[in-house]
């Protein structure tokens, strides 16, 4: 390999080509003169080695990551992937967000989609980050070889230094970075194989921890813009409804009020301080129109979803003749059985700890947005559309995200409101949703009902599975009530093409939406479908008179990864060890977001029906693990969030509007509710792909818990949350 050392003035950009091939080192801009020395987003290409790696003279390495940090540890893990290849000193690594604006100017080809959804942060960017690190390392080596006038093949790297052992010379990366930045390579270097990993796979402290211990971590809510005013907002309580009238008399004695902005479906009070805006908002008398939905309540919706299970559906999957097998099982003798059960799941709110908020500053040729987002490119596009500016005139200052869970994946109602208000008041605006607005105007996890039928042969082995699924569409949601005989992937997760070997399968879907808006909620379809299908598998095992672990195991023989997970679950949970009446273990296993995830829950239920979760054993096979520390955190956190959802989680509807409004009536698990033991076992089995981590831990908790309750009490839970079930036993 030979190094071509170019003039320092020739700016070298790096990134993905339109076809996705990595082209690090190839100039994307013809002349440095076209670029300002510091770009308007604050980045300075002239000081970069590549668009991903900046090495300062003091050897500090800044790694730019194209995904958002909302707690999952993705930024640390992505930096580890780069550092693994770069072989820099990990103690000197810093991370910063890649610029959406710059990505937009590069046609989206520099940093990719930059979305942090679908547990994709790591697995969709592994190759890009590894290549960024390897490319930087090779260019440092080539720069060193050129400096020393030696064969590059004689140069090695170690912990942030280039070495030439034959002459006992070494140079810090920091001393070589400027020269390395303009190295042209004929080909990109190979990525190392997992057996050579030294950093990846090791338990590594997060890079964002210290900033989160002293108050210095900046979230969207913490944006401070000179001259900004504050906005407090109430939207129509009934989604789709509109503003009828506002009586502003209550504002007259409140200091600092700037004005009232009336939007089609919201009222916004603007003031010089947030608390004054909120006080003003609370003093308004507002009348709303309910768009004809004022009579809708949960009882009607619940009945509607269960009734829909008898309606014609789209076929999502068909294999063999399930109908014939089911008919034979219901009529024949010889021990064959037909098992049928109907399950229900409610709307759920995301409720991240940081309520939605957005700060915008609009100018004639530039818009700046400060926001906690999972999707800065969507923010950029939406802002361009709403302001009439070009995407490259929009600057997204994305911060730490105070919880996402899908709520900040691109709908961003708060952004649209902030822009509308800023246009009217002509000043930078920080708009903050109250918790009440955040919960009642959430776009919820969809309500769903599913009916399963299965045919078991005389030995209890399943011959056919039929599923009827009625669930809100996430693609078509928010457009009023509708029923469509169609399917979408989120509707059938964990049910369609599931890893269990059923000889015949028939999966039907009716996408059924009410006027209540629905959206992606952590785990998406797997979060409710996991409960449905893994509860039903437990019912099948019970009907067959078999152990729920062994019963599933016999249906997973084609999937060594799933067998590895379920065997580890049994081993680490003391499965099979007897427990007295009133205590029980339940298990659940599913495949979601490219990983296999299983949990065993152990409970105690008192005779008067009080539930205590004693222990949760989590097993995950994500095929590869970048940072066991943050993967363990994701499993622990998924257990807690899954527990909240399974035990209490429910948004109910009355008079067309969500009833729950804050944490006094939308209950969250707290320390006192936390199981005494949550054990996490990671069993990465390797291979070509990387699995997701953020969401696969959600789905197993509810069914494992419900199955444990059945084992302890004989009470079968078919409707979430568990508050609907009477768990008393004698």
């Amino acid at each position, binding site marked *: 390999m030979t190094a071509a050392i170019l003039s320092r003035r020739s700016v070298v950009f790096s990134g993905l080509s339109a076809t996705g091939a990595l082209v690090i080192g190839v100039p994307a801009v013809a002349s440095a003169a076209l670029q300002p020395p510091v770009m308007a987003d604050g980045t300075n290409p002239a000081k970069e080695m590549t668009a991903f790696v900046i090495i300062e003279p003091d050897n500090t390495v800044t790694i730019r990551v194209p995904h958002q940090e909302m707690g999952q540890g993705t930024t640390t893990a992505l930096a580890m992937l780069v550092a693994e290849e770069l072989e820099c000193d990990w103690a000197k690594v810093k991370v910063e967000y890649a610029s959406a604006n710059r990505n937009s100017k590069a046609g989206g080809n520099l940093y990719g989609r930059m979305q942090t959804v679908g547990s994709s942060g790591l697995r969709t960017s592994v190759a890009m980050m590894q290549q960024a690190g390897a490319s930087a390392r090779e260019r440092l080596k080539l720069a060193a070889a050129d400096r020393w006038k030696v064969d590059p093949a004689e140069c090695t790297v170690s912990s942030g230094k280039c070495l030439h052992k034959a002459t006992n010379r070494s140079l810090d990366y920091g001393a070589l970075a400027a020269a390395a930045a303009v190295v042209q390579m004929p080909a990109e270097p190979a990525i190392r194989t997992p057996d050579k990993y030294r950093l990846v796979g090791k338990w590594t402290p997060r890079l964002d921890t210290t900033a989160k*211990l002293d108050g210095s971590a900046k979230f969207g809510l913490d944006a401070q813009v000179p001259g900004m005013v504050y906005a407090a907002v109430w939207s129509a309580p009934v989604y789709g409804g509109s503003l009828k009238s506002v009586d502003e008399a209550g504002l007259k004695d409140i200091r600092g009020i700037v004005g009232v902005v009336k939007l089609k479906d919201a009222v916004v009070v603007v003031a010089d301080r947030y608390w004054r805006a909120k006080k003003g908002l609370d003093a308004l008398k507002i009348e709303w129109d309910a768009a004809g939905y004022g009579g809708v309540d949960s009882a009607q919706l619940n009945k509607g979803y269960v009734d829909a299970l008898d309606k014609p559906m789209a076929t999502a999957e068909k294999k063999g003749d399930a109908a014939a097998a089911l008919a034979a099982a219901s009529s024949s003798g010889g021990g064959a059985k037909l098992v049928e059960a109907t399950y229900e799941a409610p709307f759920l709110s995301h409720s991240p700890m940081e309520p939605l908020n957005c700060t915008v500053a609009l100018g004639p040729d530039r818009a700046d947005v400060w926001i906690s987002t999972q999707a800065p490119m969507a923010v950029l596009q939406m802002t361009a559309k709403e302001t009439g500016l070009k995407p490259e005139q929009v600057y997204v200052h994305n911060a730490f995200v105070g919880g996402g869970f899908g709520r900040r994946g691109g709908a961003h109602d708060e952004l649209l409101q902030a822009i509308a208000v800023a246009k009217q008041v002509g000043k930078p605006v920080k708009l903050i949703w109250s918790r009440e607005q955040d919960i009642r105007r959430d776009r919820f996890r969809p309500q769903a009902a599913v009916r399963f039928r299965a045919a078991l042969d005389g030995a209890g082995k399943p011959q056919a599975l039929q599923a009827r699924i009625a669930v809100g569409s996430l693609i078509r949601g928010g457009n009023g009530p509708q029923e469509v005989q169609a399917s979408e992937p989120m509707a059938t997760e964990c049910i369609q093409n599931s890893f269990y070997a059923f000889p015949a399968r028939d999966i039907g879907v009716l996408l059924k939406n009410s006027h209540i808006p629905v959206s992606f909620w952590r785990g998406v379809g797997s979060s409710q479908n996991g409960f449905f299908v893994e509860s039903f598998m437990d019912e099948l095992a019970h009907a067959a008179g078999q152990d729920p672990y062994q019963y599933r195991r016999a249906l997973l023989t084609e999937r060594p990864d799933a067998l590895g997970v379920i065997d580890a679950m049994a081993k680490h949970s003391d499965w099979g060890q007897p427990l007295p009446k009133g205590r029980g273990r339940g298990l659940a296993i599913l495949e979601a977001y490219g990983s296999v995830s299983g949990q065993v829950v152990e409970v105690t239920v008192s005779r008067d029906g009080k539930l205590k979760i004693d222990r949760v054993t989590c097993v995950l096979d994500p095929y590869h693990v970048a940072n066991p520390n943050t993967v363990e955190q994701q499993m622990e956190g998924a257990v807690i969030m899954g527990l909240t959802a399974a035990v209490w989680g429910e948004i109910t509807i009355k008079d067309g509007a969500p009833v729950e409004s804050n944490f006094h009536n939308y209950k*969250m698990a707290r320390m006192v509710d*936390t199981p005494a033991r949550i054990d996490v076992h990671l069993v990465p089995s390797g291979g070509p792909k990387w699995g997701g981590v953020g969401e696969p831990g959600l789905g197993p908790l509810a069914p494992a818990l419900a199955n444990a309750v059945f084992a302890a009490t004989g009470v079968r839970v078919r409707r979430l949350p568990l508050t609907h079930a009477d768990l008393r036993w004698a």
Partner: protein
Amino acid sequence: MITLTVNGKRHDLDVEPDAPLLWVIRDELGLTGTKFGCGIAQCGACTVQVDGKPVRSCVTPAGSVKGAITTIEGLSAGLKHPVQQAWLAEDVPQCGYCQSGQILAAAALLSDTPNPSDADIDAKLTNICRCGTYPRIRKAVHRAAAAMAKGART
């Protein structure tokens, strides 16, 4: 006009006495480590200490506060407080939004109850963490208690 003492510094502020302490700390003093979570004293993201006791600042009128206020920015210099050290050792935070409140609540618990049982932790640490960092918080509180018993200084 009200007067507040925050992190050892006295501030005379031209705000209404009923202004919530949370927003005065954040928007008048610029100390944004204290977070807004619910506005009704349910979640504890806004927890600060007044004379060492945990207070939910979102429902506390600024004008009612007579004692010395400590926010996360004033708990220690350089993360020296044993609770911060324990949080670091256990790598507690995920999204991090609630952690200022969690740390101040835990520090207040330990100054009251130097060797808390799990039941004490359950009863006194009621702040909500949506990411579910509770298992690590529990470990960190025990770790901090042990360090303080060995003489680590707050």
